[in-house]
């Protein structure tokens, strides 16, 4: 019998599954945005590249941020 888990305990493994989705979404959103801006200034390919890289950076930050906060911060680690 396992001890009952609080919702907070379950969040970290659940979040791990959204990493892939966040990365894809980041590239998608800012890739498209960069492409559209690039079209306007006549540099569509460059816009797409810059946008996609920016998207990866942004989504990595998002993943890092959420994982760091999901277990209550680095100072609140539970005993195993």
């Amino acid at each position, binding site marked *: 019998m396992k001890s*009952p*888990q609080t*919702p*907070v305990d*379950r*969040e970290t*493994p*659940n979040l791990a*599954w*959204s990493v*892939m*989705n*966040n990365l*894809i*979404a*980041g590239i*998608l*959103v*800012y890739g498209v945005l960069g492409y559209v801006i690039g079209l306007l200034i006549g540099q569509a390919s460059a816009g797409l590249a810059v946008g996609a890289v920016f*998207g990866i950076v*942004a*989504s990595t*930050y*998002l993943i890092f*941020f*959420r994982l760091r*906060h999901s277990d209550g911060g680095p100072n609140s680690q539970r005993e195993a």
Partner: protein
Amino acid sequence: MLGAVVPMSEVEPGCHLNSGCGFPAPDASIFDFEPYFGNFTKPIFLLLLGSLIIIVFFLIAFRNAKIVPTKMQSLGEMGYLFVRDGISREVIGKDGDRFVPLLFSLFFFVWIGNLWGIIPGAQFPVNSRFAFPVGLAITVWLIYMYLGMRHQGPLKFFTNMMFPPGMPKAIYVILAPIELISNVLVRPVTLSIRLFANMFAGHLLLTVFTVATFYLASLSFVGILGSATSFLMTVIFTAFEALIQALQAYIFTLLTAVYIAGSLHAEH
């Protein structure tokens, strides 16, 4: 003499190393079937047969259930408890028990659909036809979107999704679109592609080595060595596929549970 690689759909039956024809490389045509009648094809037949097998199995297993279970009943209970304790309670928690029937059905439906890939005579994983995973993913999408709007409110659901608490205000502008697209658009896409691609690739691999076993079988050094190796690879990959099939069914169900859990409780 080794010939060129020729698509499987363009090769005469009985093509062999010594008959001077090229290796019949399996292509997309191995996923197409002549319908038995109307639009009723082999994948649909396997899907219906699989569903029937699951229903009959669990009906027999749980028919006059006893405190001291019979063999069938213990097997059925093992499957049920695996989904309830291993997936539902682990991911959603106690209040996830009302979703166990859904997760249970999903798990066994996906699993038997995959399992047909290594069952002799059938040998076609139903979920390697893209429409089936897409149908399942759309169902899952509808369920978790509905649950989210119902439990958190139609507007709150999206704002909770887009603005996880505790971030600097300026960052929200950049990250909110990512969260929205990730949860609403990318989730069902990755869910269906993950299942489809695994089954598609697995079936293709098995076909390549099975075809190679027959194509190379002959009394020559290349023939014996190649054929034996291909046969060994077929056996190894069949075992490997058995693992992947169960694993993909598990992941599909687990992710459904994760999405439902995310819809029930907003992030803190």
